[in-house]
């Protein structure tokens, strides 16, 4: 809402304060002033002058005038390109040296063969209107030579205030004026305090069929409308400053009254109406061509104003084209009604028709205003000589009384944490228009008609606290009940992420939106849960309507983006939820303000998709960089599998690696990852077709695991190591086995065979050359043996080694390498 300070001062006896001060106080009271425009600044040397002679210069392509002016001191001559004035008119003359808004300086200059001694200004050049079709012709009685800034009152400040949805009353000079008057303790004259004319009988037949959508409808008539009379300058200027465009006197007047008191008005051409006005919901299939000339199909929820011909206006939103005021209109029916907020909100949204009227109705309008606003408009029309009132007032009134609120006078102070005296509470509520009566239960507070937002005691609390000032609130700290710290899951999530970062992975947060084909590009089977299954009805991008069901596509895109930006050695990770449909279904319709039953809550949760948390990494380029020390080492499947060990190790669990075939991985380079028999995910090199589909470098590797299963597998209390003080015996063993035998299997056999004396086992060499034999390989391990209670003898060590080898031989036909 834009509001000039001059308009505000009409109703508030403000002390000598500047607009910035008013802005700060309003902001502190909850009406946030977004900006203050200082108008009329930068105008200097522009004076009132009279046109004494006009010479038309005809030798140019466009009409040019050589104008002689009397500025009360001298005779001055200027060139002027406008023609909307005549001899005798008073104009705004920029007399050199003069300046105009925007830093323009006006000097005498050569133009069209003459020396133009300054210029005649248009409304736009003075920053007071949009009009640049001609110069500004002033009213006749202004003294010559007077500064136009003073004479026209051009100096003004305009407050641009953002109004919250609960403060409909503040969308008016009346509402903001009241707030300003409270802020300064300055007297306030309510512009709506006019005796509404009750008149003699009704003015037009009105019937409200839907009293829920409309609880009041006032209709008044104006006759003898003179379309030739335009709105006066002061009225147009106020509309412009408030951000509205002047249109015609009648429309301007209704807008002016709306801005001043907050009641939207609508004017019908009375001669286009047939039969009584009925306020009702639209019938199915009904249509209306609205003022913006769009033919609209109406929804049965739309509230309409109808006559015998059908709908003539969308209630509280926009009028119809057929009953619009035109240049030919002489008889007017003025509507001042009270429409229900939600109805108007839905209709405005449904038809994408936000209007000044709907903005106000949505936020709540004073239901006492309709007769007053109609009277204000009619009085103004008469005052401007543009028409005359028709006797009679139709006022169909179905309003229900506003309930009073019982308020514990100590509640505001208790909630604020400040001791407000009871008198302060009473005074503040009275200031905003409430009637406050003390009773045994506390205060009985009757909110004013313009505050339909005040319904609960806490609503009144906010009024008291904001007017007493948020700046006065203390800064105290509550003593929270002792908490349990981070949960185990929260702690372990940090552990996992830190482990990956420590291992050289960079965390990224990827877009969770994917396209429908991402599952195909990952070569996933039809029933794979990693195929996108949760679709967004109104996605940000139509090409990515699904939520991710695996973290990989996002990571692939991030990797490709980094590589495109010249960052080739990439190791990325992401952790977070993925979304997998469980069939969905409709959520039960539950009320606000009532705790649902446990069954209802379970029903709510049941319609949500599964949202498991996962961890994924992608690697491309070099894992170890080349340098003066030698060549680099490209990242590969080994690193991806190692990432699983990094994760498992950070939680103190062992991960079992086994070969698997699993999309999107290379069928020969894919590891299944198990912890205590449970599958946690897969790692390996990506399938070449996946690499191609996601435009990744060849041999890109990746891993994706379930964060939830990983964390669940972590021991709550890790087992302590038995630290034996006795010396260790270290022995090596090299075994020749079938080339296809996984090393992990061989290792498991050795472990099983070695038994309890084996402290550590590590594979350290792999040989697949000729000497191992055709189709065979030699694998070397080092074993560290130690007993908890003695030094092992050479015989014991040999026995353990023999037992280990024997088990390997039994399980895998391993042969000791000679």
């Amino acid at each position, binding site marked *: 809402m834009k509001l000039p300070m001059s308009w505000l001062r009409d109703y508030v006896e403000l002390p000598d304060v500047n607009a910035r001060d008013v802005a700060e106080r309003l902001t*502190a009271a909850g009406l946030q002033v977004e900006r203050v425009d200082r108008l009329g600044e930068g105008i200097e040397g522009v004076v009132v002058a009279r046109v004494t002679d006009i010479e038309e210069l005809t030798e140019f392509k466009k009409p040019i005038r050589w104008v002689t002016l009397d500025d009360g001191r001298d005779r001055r001559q200027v060139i002027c390109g406008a023609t909307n004035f005549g001899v005798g008119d008073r104009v705004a003359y920029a007399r050199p040296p003069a300046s105009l808004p925007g830093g323009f300086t006006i000097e005498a200059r050569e133009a069209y063969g003459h020396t133009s001694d300054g210029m005649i200004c248009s409304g736009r050049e003075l920053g007071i209107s949009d009009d640049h079709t001609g110069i500004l012709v002033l009213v006749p009685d202004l003294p010559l030579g007077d500064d136009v800034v003073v004479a026209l009152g051009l100096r003004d400040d305009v407050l641009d205030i953002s109004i919250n949805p609960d403060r409909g009353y503040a969308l008016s000079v009346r509402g903001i004026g009241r707030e300003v008057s409270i802020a300064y303790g300055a007297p306030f004259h309510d512009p709506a305090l006019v005796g509404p004319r009750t008149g003699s009988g009704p003015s037009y037949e009105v019937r409200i069929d839907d009293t829920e959508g409309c609880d009041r409808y006032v209709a008044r008539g104006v006759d003898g409308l003179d379309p030739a009379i335009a709105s006066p300058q002061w009225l147009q200027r106020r509309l412009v400053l408030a951000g509205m465009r002047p249109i015609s006197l009648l429309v301007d007047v209704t807008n002016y009254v709306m801005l001043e008191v907050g009641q939207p008005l609508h004017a019908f051409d009375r001669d286009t109406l047939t039969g009584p006005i009925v306020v009702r919901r639209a019938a199915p299939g009904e249509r209306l061509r609205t003022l913006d000339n769009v033919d609209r199909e109406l929804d049965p929820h739309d509230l309409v104003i109808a006559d015998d011909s059908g709908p003539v206006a969308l209630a509280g939103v926009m009028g119809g084209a057929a009953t619009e005021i035109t240049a030919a209109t002489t008889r007017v029916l003025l509507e001042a009604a009270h429409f229900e907020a*939600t109805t108007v909100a839905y209709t405005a949204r449904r038809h994408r028709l936000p209007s000044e009227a709907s903005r106000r109705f949505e936020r709540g309008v004073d239901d006492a205003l309709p007769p007053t606003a109609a009277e204000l408009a009619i009085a103004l029309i008469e005052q401007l000589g543009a028409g005359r009132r028709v006797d009679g007032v139709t006022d169909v009134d179905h309003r229900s009384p506003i309930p009073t609120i019982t308020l514990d006078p100590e509640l505001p102070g208790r909630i604020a944490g400040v001791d407000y005296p009871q008198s302060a509470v009473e005074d503040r509520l009275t200031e905003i228009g409430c009637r406050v009566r003390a009773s045994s239960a506390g205060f009985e507070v009757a909110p004013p008609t313009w505050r339909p937002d005040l319904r609960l005691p806490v609503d009144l609390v906010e009024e008291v606290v904001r007017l007493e000032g*948020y700046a006065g609130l203390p800064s105290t700290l509550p003593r929270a009940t002792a908490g349990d710290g981070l949960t185990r899951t929260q702690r372990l999530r940090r552990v996992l992420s830190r482990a990956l970062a420590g291992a050289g992975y960079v965390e990224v947060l990827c877009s969770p939106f994917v396209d429908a084909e991402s599952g195909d590009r990952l070569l996933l089977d039809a029933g794979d849960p990693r195929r996108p299954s949760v679709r967004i009805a109104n996605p*940000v991008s139509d090409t990515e309507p699904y939520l991710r069901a695996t973290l990989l596509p996002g990571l692939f895109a991030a990797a490709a983006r980094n590589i495109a930006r010249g960052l080739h050695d990439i190791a990325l990770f992401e952790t977070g939820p993925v979304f997998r449909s469980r069939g969905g279904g409709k959520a039960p319709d539950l009320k606000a*303000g009532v705790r649902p039953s446990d069954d209802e809550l379970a029903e709510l949760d049941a319609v949500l998709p599964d949202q498991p948390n996962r961890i994924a990494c992608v690697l491309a380029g070099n894992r170890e960089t080349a340098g003066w020390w030698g060549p680099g080492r490209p990242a590969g499947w080994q690193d991806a599998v190692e990432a699983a060990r990094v994760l498992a190790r950070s939680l103190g669990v062992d991960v079992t690696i086994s070969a698997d075939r699993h999309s999107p991985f290379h069928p020969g380079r894919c590891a299944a990852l198990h912890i205590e028999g449970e599958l946690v995910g897969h790692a390996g090199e990506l399938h070449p077709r996946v690499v191609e589909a996601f435009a990744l470098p060849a041999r890109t590797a990746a891993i994706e695991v379930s964060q939830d299963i990983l964390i669940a597998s972590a021991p709550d209390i890790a087992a302590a190591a038995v630290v034996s003080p006795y010396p260790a015996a270290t022995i090596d063993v090299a075994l020749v086995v079938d080339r296809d035998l996984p090393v992990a299997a061989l290792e498991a056999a050795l472990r099983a065979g070695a038994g309890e004396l084996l402290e550590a086992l590590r594979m350290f060499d792999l040989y697949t050359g000729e000497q191992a034999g055709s189709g065979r390989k030699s694998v070397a391990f080092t074993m560290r043996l130690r007993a908890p209670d003695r030094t092992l003898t050479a015989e014991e060590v040999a026995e353990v080694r023999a037992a280990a080898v024997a088990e390997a031989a039994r399980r895998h036909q391993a042969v000791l390498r000679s």
Partner: protein
Amino acid sequence: MSGPNDPYDPKEVSALSDDELAAAVTQGEAAFAAATDLDTLAEAHTTHLGPRSSVALARRELGALPPQARADAGRRVNAALAALTASYDARRSALEIERDERVLVEEAVDVTLPWDRAPVGGRHPLTLIQERVADVFVGMGWEIAEGPEVEASWFNFDALNIPPAHPARETQDTLWIEPADNGVLLRTQTSPVQIRALLARGAPCYVAVPGRVYRQEALDATHSAVFHQLEGLAVDEGLTMGDLRGTLDTLARAMFGPQVRTRLRPDHYPFTEPSADVDLLCWVCQGTSTEPGAEFCRTCRSEGWIEWGGSGMVHPVVLASAGIDPERYTGFAFGMGLERTLMSRHDMSDIRDLVEGDVRVTAALGREG
């Protein structure tokens, strides 16, 4: 040279003469001094201090002397031995220092050579800031609550007293899960976790909720469809707006440093009453850029204050939706954008840097404790 003596066979021993001892010392000292490396010195040591050296022989022959003569000769032999040993030790340590210096100089390397063989990892600044705020609240005894990102609209709207006609429900703000009338959406705020936390814990309840939220927004420098919020909720007997203010002050200091100044300003949120916006005094211009004629401030757009988040006292409807008695308990809640907090902290201007996954962003910000 003489051979080993029988200790009980006294005889005159020439090696014990003063002159001979003096000569042995002089020769030894000269030999030690002449040695230019440790090997030569070792040879000189064998000759002059070794088991077959004059002094050693003299020492061995002491036993053959009568007791009185033995004491006297012993003193002289010991003196000679000490002098030689001192001379040797001094020379040896001098030569050792010389050798060490030479060797260490030869072994010197260029320590400025790079060794960036292993890749450098890092956490995303947005996860770090979430952990940081979590720690601030855990330090105050609060807990960290969580909720699903795909949420029922009852939790996201109804229970939070956001009526069906509220503009926030318009499709341009909310991303609905298909079919759109099933009442399932991507949470537009972390506030639904207020309800879940209260349902799960009851009162009293002190929880902070960092998390990801979604809005129907096209990506540009200041908007992203996916972003992060921090939600705080405290419900207990007798909580006040002063407690809200103190908690916000604590959080602001933890995020921006001890000099930060906050302001509460009345605003409107359906789920709080009274409601307040939290502003931070612009740390660049300290609010002075609002004065007429002052230079434009890029950080606060010459508004003096920077909007940080929304807050207020929990609306009774919200408490009742979670089964908490609003007559007995009051509560406060607040929420702020973490991207905005992070961008303010580091004076960043483009939110896209945080969502595109460029590793350089993490390299710069992802290692902050």
